[in-house]
């Protein structure tokens, strides 16, 4: 289990939405650009790492009860995405790191994989 604010620090990230969730925690993480795959994950309290930057990534998080989405490689988040994220209290973090590096750091820090 890890606090969102610690995820932000480890990934040298910026919080785009959901700064109020800084003290809440995530148990597990899943990294994918394939939303169809994300939608099959049954785990709750999940963090999603993705390089797919569109509103469907946020909608997928909403439907899957994912509370925190990390966009890797500093991909630009659109206003439409932040609007949907705010409505659903989803934290969006931007990280300069690649998906590989970000996943490795969080894995090493103890966030569990789903599979």
């Amino acid at each position, binding site marked *: 289990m890890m606090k969102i604010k610690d995820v932000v620090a480890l990934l040298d990230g910026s919080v785009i939405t959901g700064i109020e969730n800084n003290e809440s925690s995530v148990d597990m993480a899943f990294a994918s650009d394939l939303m169809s*795959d994300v939608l099959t994950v049954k785990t709750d309290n999940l963090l999603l790492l993705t390089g797919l930057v569109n*509103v*469907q990534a946020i*909608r997928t998080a909403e*439907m899957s009860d994912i509370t925190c989405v990390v966009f890797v490689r500093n991909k630009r988040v659109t206003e439409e995405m932040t609007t949907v994220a705010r409505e659903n209290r989803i934290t969006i973090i931007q990280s300069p790191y690649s998906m590989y590096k970000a996943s490795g750091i969080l894995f090493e820090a103890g966030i569990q994989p789903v599979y």
Partner: protein
Amino acid sequence: MHFEFKVEGGNFSRAGFPSSEVKKRLKQLNVDGSVIKRTVVALYEAEVNIVAHAYSGVISVDIDAGKIIITLADEGPGIPDIRKAMEIGYSTATPEVREMGFGAGMGLSNMNSNADKLEITSEVGKGTTVVITNYFHE
């Protein structure tokens, strides 16, 4: 309780709005969280299918004390072979749909695993109707 949404084929920007509204209503009705998640995941997958494959569609939602029935009726090309479409990995999605993070041939089987009852009927050249039923209590 009955309500409806119109879905526009190809409009990915709006995809997810009906699923989002259904999620809010079910939360207001204090439906169990795991039932809500299964229901909106199945609905969202079905909604994305209309946006990805059909020209237009209507989503009708009926909720009573024990269950939710969602009917998604689209006007579109239809599915020639539903059994084949249910196979994991089988997909006819366009590159545009794949760029949105879908179209990997996983949607129908995921709908099946998140619905208590899933009925699909289709007529080639006319359209497809999907009915998702989920019960609030076991």
